[in-house]
């Protein structure tokens, strides 16, 4: 595997188009219903009061759905067919937060089967980083 600085229209340092998504309890409830993940920490305010967080929080995987929207819009083929994601959840998303998804190409990698872009990725709620990691998607045919 070797590193490149650029490939076609892709360059190290390129920013992905940012996404901002407002999250409220209605969205969290809808995601719980769609995903079947009805952990009371997400949907039961009385239970959530008894936890470390003190109130309900969004599913971490709901935040990753926003990440996937950014990658799908940027490079659907490379994301859906061979995309990789590696993230840590650093903080909660609460009802009323707006999640901002931000990404930047930090490496362009030549692998045996093609060329891939690795993007540093972070999700923020105001100044709080709630998700951090990287994603990889193929950028050559």
């Amino acid at each position, binding site marked *: 595997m070797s590193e490149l600085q650029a490939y076609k229209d892709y360059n190290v340092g390129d920013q992905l188009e940012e996404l901002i998504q407002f999250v409220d309890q209605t969205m969290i409830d809808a995601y719980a219903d769609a995903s079947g993940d009805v952990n*009371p920490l997400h949907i039961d305010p009385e239970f959530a009061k008894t936890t470390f967080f003190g109130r309900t929080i969004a599913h971490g*995987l*709901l935040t990753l759905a926003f990440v996937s929207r950014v990658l799908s819009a940027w490079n659907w083929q490379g994301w859906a067919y061979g995309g990789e994601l590696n993230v840590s959840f650093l903080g909660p998303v609460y009802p009323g937060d707006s999640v901002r998804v931000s990404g930047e190409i930090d490496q362009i990698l030549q692998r045996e089967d093609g060329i891939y872009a690795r993007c540093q990725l972070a999700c923020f709620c105001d100044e709080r980083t709630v998700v951090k990691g990287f994603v990889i998607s193929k950028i050559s045919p």
Partner: protein
Amino acid sequence: MMSDYVKYSSMSEGDDFLDPVPSFEVTKECVDKYIKSTNDSTKELTVDDEQGRRVAPPMLAAVYVIDALRTRVGPPGGIHAKQQFKFHRPAYVGETLFTSARVVKLYERKGRNYVEMTTETRNQEGELITSGIITRIWGKEA
């Protein structure tokens, strides 16, 4: 009284966590519901592909993997700490998916119990759809 959740102390590294491996039907309804709940307007998700198949969002993995893991749950209040996914290809409406999971690491940090598992999802033909590593903080046991 038996607890209705999996105790942290009952797991060992190397355990197959899901036995039998549960199945998940990818229906148009579940895909539509997921897309709506995540506010996803990706255009490739609104039309059939060249083979006439309806493609599911890659991150539907969050649904079918968690659905499988939910067949053996930890105590309430557990949370997701880390996630890795590799999307070998998207799932299609009409497929049946089977997700296996293996406990690879158990550790304690700052008084919390962590469980790391590998997951692998294949369709009814054995075709690999998604693989991943999930790290969960186990909920506090009563």
